[in-house]
């Protein structure tokens, strides 16, 4: 807990001047507010004795002046302190997102997007409440408590002690309820995310739900989750229902004692009537800090819990870093030579998905990978741009371990096209130019490289068919591209960065064979001095490769050129025969 707070401190300290000024305003506001009952005391006493109207006007003016001064500083206090908290929120959110950007693919695959988003929004807001309003009100509260107590003591110590008797109960109940409420609140949040997941799945899978007549069972699932949510809320409500009334009750007890014993004191002339009124007013003012105390503790508790959730992300160790990188390599151009040596790889503690894989590709060569689903093809490809980290001394680019290349240099030399293309909801041109700065907009020279890349990926004719051409918006707020168009956009995007190594992970699976062949033909020229690594299920795609690796169960079971492998009569030849058979079948 303490270390968590220590991690938050630097953010606040960045704005220490504003906090200092803002908190000074809090002090002034509070002190001025505490003046009013004192003025009242004189006014009542004077009225009791009989005074001139002029003096009354003076008291009235004093009250108004106190109001104006107090109000002015309250305005400043809010602006400055809450404003600072917004700035800290801004800093935190930026840092949070920057941190996300350093985390590796493995991290994101074990976490839900919605959960990460909620940390960047809901949790962050709770943290902000803690460092803004909560700080403001706690200073305010402590001050009121301290000063009012002193003033009350100066009126009548004995009465003050009596009036303060119920206060420990307030504090105790705040502690008790605070923790209990917090715990229940967490359980409710967890249930809400479960509820969302249930809805999300039912909606996303509507066709399956309908086709298999699963409406009732899905509704039952939803209902159960919904009921659980209400059930958990009930616990919280019961607590909250008791919490606030018990605060009021204990505070009221103080007022009761003052009314009862204080009025006796007036009769016994130990205190004046004005002092009695002022005493009551101070006690009322004290009730606010006591309630605020409960409220602020809640805010702080929630804020701390949220902050810890954010810290889980902020303190996450990126698995893929430049820790082993040699900075001297930063400026060195990559030629594209690729070598994999006795590579054994497993995700986490799982069993190896790649075992003893070795091969090399000189710049300008094409290596193709074939093999059944789950044979480790994609895993192998993902190790080269270090989406996952290979063990040291297993994967080399230009003879240097990929872990020793600065990530920036390594990835800058690799054009990676995954099977499931991810496009941003932006213009097509911006998507293609994404890796090259994404600035390409408008017309003219800037668009030329985009056109070139789109041409090789055979996207140009598709785009010509769209009214907005390269400016077409894609994604949720634009048009939906077909699977093949998406894949070809992703290819164009990879080509745009002028890669030394091009990696196609079954990246044209949704493109028809004719178009694919055209693309491969154009790529051949483009890739003349570059290295290509291609995964495909189609023999026609891989047969011209310089080296074909057949993977099965994470091992290379066959290697060679198309001709050699066909001659070998193994798995590849089998695959080839099957595909020929298919073609023949189609021809019959």
């Amino acid at each position, binding site marked *: 807990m303490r270390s968590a707070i220590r991690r938050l401190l630097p953010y606040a300290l960045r704005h220490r001047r504003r906090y200092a000024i803002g908190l000074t305003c809090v002090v002034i506001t509070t002190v001025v507010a505490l003046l009013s009952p004192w003025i009242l005391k004189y006014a009542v006493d004077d009225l009791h004795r009989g005074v001139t109207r002029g003096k009354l006007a003076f008291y009235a003016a004093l009250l108004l002046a106190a109001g104006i001064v107090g109000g002015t500083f309250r305005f400043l206090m809010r602006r400055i302190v809450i404003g600072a908290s917004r700035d800290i929120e801004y800093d935190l959110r930026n840092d949070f997102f920057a941190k996300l950007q350093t985390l590796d693919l493995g991290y994101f695959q074990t976490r839900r997007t919605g959960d990460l988003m909620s940390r960047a929004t809901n949790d962050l807001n709770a943290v902000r409440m803690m460092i803004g309003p909560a700080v403001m009100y706690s200073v305010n509260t402590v001050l009121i408590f301290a000063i009012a107590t002193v003033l009350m003591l100066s009126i009548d110590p004995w009465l003050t002690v009596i009036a303060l008797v119920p206060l420990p109960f307030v504090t105790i109940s705040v502690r008790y309820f605070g923790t209990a409420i917090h715990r229940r609140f967490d359980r409710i949040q967890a249930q809400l995310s479960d509820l969302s997941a249930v809805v999300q799945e039912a909606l996303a899978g509507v*066709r399956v739900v309908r086709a298999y007549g699963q409406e009732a069972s899905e509704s039952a699932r939803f209902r159960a989750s919904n009921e659980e949510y209400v059930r958990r809320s009930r616990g919280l409500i019961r607590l909250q229902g008791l919490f606030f009334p018990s605060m009021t009750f204990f505070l009221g007890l103080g007022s009761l004692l003052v009314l009862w014993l204080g009025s006796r004191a007036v009769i016994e002339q130990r205190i004046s009537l004005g002092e009695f009124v002022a005493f009551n007013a101070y006690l009322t003012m004290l009730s606010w800090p006591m309630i605020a105390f409960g409220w602020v503790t809640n805010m702080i508790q929630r804020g701390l819990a949220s902050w810890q959730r954010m810290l889980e992300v902020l303190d996450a160790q990126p698995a893929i870093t430049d820790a082993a990188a040699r900075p001297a390599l930063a400026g060195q151009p990559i030629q594209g030579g690729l070598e994999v040596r006795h590579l054994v790889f497993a995700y986490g503690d799982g069993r190896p998905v790649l075992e003893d894989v070795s091969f090399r590709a000189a710049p300008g060569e094409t290596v193709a990978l074939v093999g059944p689903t789950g044979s480790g093809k994609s895993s192998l490809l993902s190790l080269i741009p270090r989406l996952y980290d290979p063990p040291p001394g297993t994967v080399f680019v230009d003879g240097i371990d990929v872990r020793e290349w600065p990530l920036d240099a390594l990835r800058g030399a690799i054009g990676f096209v995954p099977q499931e293309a991810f496009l941003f909801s932006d213009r097509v041109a911006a998507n293609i130019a994404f890796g090259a700065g994404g600035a390409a907009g408008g017309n003219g020279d800037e668009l030329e490289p985009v056109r070139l890349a789109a041409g090789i990926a055979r996207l140009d004719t598709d785009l010509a068919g769209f009214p907005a051409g390269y400016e077409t918006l894609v994604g949720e707020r634009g048009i939906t591209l077909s699977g093949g168009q998406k894949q070809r956009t992703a290819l164009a995007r990879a080509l745009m960065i002028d890669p030394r190594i091009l990696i196609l992970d079954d990246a044209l699976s949704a493109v028809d064979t004719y178009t694919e062949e055209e693309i491969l033909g154009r790529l051949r020229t483009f890739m003349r001095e570059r290295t290509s690594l291609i995964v495909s299920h189609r023999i026609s795609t891989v047969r011209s490769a310089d080296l074909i690796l057949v993977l099965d169960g994470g091992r290379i079971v066959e290697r060679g050129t198309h001709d050699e492998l066909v001659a070998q009569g193994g798995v590849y030849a089998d695959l080839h025969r099957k595909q020929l058979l298919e073609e023949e079948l189609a021809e019959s």
Partner: protein
Amino acid sequence: MVQHEEEVLGKAYDGRLMRRLLRYLSPYRAVVALSLGAIIAQSALQLAQPYLIKLAIDRYIATGDLEGLNTIALAFLAILCGSFVLEFVQTYTLQMTGQRIMFDLRTQIYDRFQALDLKFYDRNPVGRMMTRVTTDVDVLNDLFTSGLVSVFGDVFTLAGIMIVMLAMNWKLALVAFSVLPLIVLVTQWFRRNVRDTYRTVRVWIARINAFLQEHITGMATVQLFRQEGRTFARFDGINQRHRDANIASIFYYAVFYPAVEIVGALAAALIIWVGGADVLAATLTLGSLVAFLQYAQRFFRPISDLSEKFNILQAAMASAERIFGVLDTPVAIRTPAEPRRLAPAPAGRIEFDHVWFAYEGEDYVLRDVSFTVEPGERVGIVGATGAGKSTLISLLLRFYEVSRGRILVDGVDIRELDLGELRGLFSLVLQDVHLFSGTIGGNIRLGRRSIDDARAWRAAEAVHAGRFIRERPGGLESPVAERGATLSVGQKQLLSFARALAFDPRVLILDEATSSVDTETELLIRDALRALMTGRTTIAIAHRLSTIQDMDQILVLHKGVLREAGRHQALLARRGIYYKLYQLQYKDQELAGGRTPTPAGAAHEEADAGAPGVPADST
């Protein structure tokens, strides 16, 4: 950027929406009445406190009556205890009612989603629909719990204070009320400005969410292309705008509360000045003056509370509008009131009778399509992308309603059938496999209890999914993550086959799902499907003609029109569209073969090269 629907904010109060919202309270009328009673009683008790102090000062302190003071103290204690009970009752009943209403609303919205046809889903992304069930409902909860009823309490307190003050001394009361116009002015100014800033803040929050969502999902792309810096700069821009909007809104709050405070001080000053004079003139007791000051203080709290409620009200109206928008969307496709029943063991004869269909207006994607699928027949549907193949299946399952014509199952129009009975005839296998989080077994049997483990295993084994399931430590009980993230594309497809098989349908519908599986797996699946198809009507959409050549009937769709139907050889012989489609694919493969110097290609070339030597017409 295009405006998100969430960014649109309507007016703060809409009588029509409010009346409809209030209807949700009616099942809980008794509880709500209890709650209101508690609020009123509690307000009254609150009002009594200053009056007790007045009594103490004027009647008992002045006369030194200790007995009377004891009575006052007892009364005060009674008020405290009463308040405790009332506040608990009020909080509990109110919040629970809020929860129940949320429960009702969520259920209603969810049920509506379950009932709405796929046209609705086409138009509304899942994220937006989720917001209706969660966020929008939460906003309405705020309205019911801290909005509506407590507004009522505030108004009551306000009225009560005014009445008590007027009763105590109407002249002084009017003096105190003289500051009211100022309060109204301040509140108006605040409301007007806060509404605008609130809207801007919402817009930027929505943008932040959208940006985060997209870039967390696409993080690998950002990292692979080393765009962290530029992406961060864009995020920073949105983040900054969000902060600035918030800071702008702080200003109005920062002005509003102090302004109310100053007006309060003004009222107190007036009371001291004017009321003090009355005390001196002995037309007002000192106790009344003190009570007046306390009442005046309590007077402003509900007013500033009320303006706080304004945001809640405004957000609630916007959410209610959206929620009712969903609830008011008519359910186009439903089971008729008196459905016709199929025979106990329906044969599953399917007939399309002059079916026309348009997703929108007159833009027909299917035109006058008629064909019949006999029980046990295997039918393949072919055609270019956009020919209407998938639409045909969606219509058969009644995801959409035909625009014209009719679809018959065993001679009964599907619109006259019970939806459940109709869809129960089919098992659907889609290109995009949808998995539910839970277990592998749960994804095979879904909600159908009659599919026990043995049957699930049999189905899995039959489609060669058994192997990878066995390899997992938990077998059928192995967990499946959200969207099946831990399974490969191929494994997901095998699972969906197992599911289709486990349901043992009359009719199997396949939207050719074999395109992204490797040849090995594809052959296994084809083998499994063959077994699955026997004795079952099968309708398969094929993207590759090789898949369907041995089908009993092939339907050729072209631009929404059923152009040809028949067996493979017969269709080829017609030299029509099927023949052209066939030629096209054949050519593709020939081209692919001819371009690369491979044995297969070389063989072609040899044959071609040899051809000129032998005149084609030499025989």
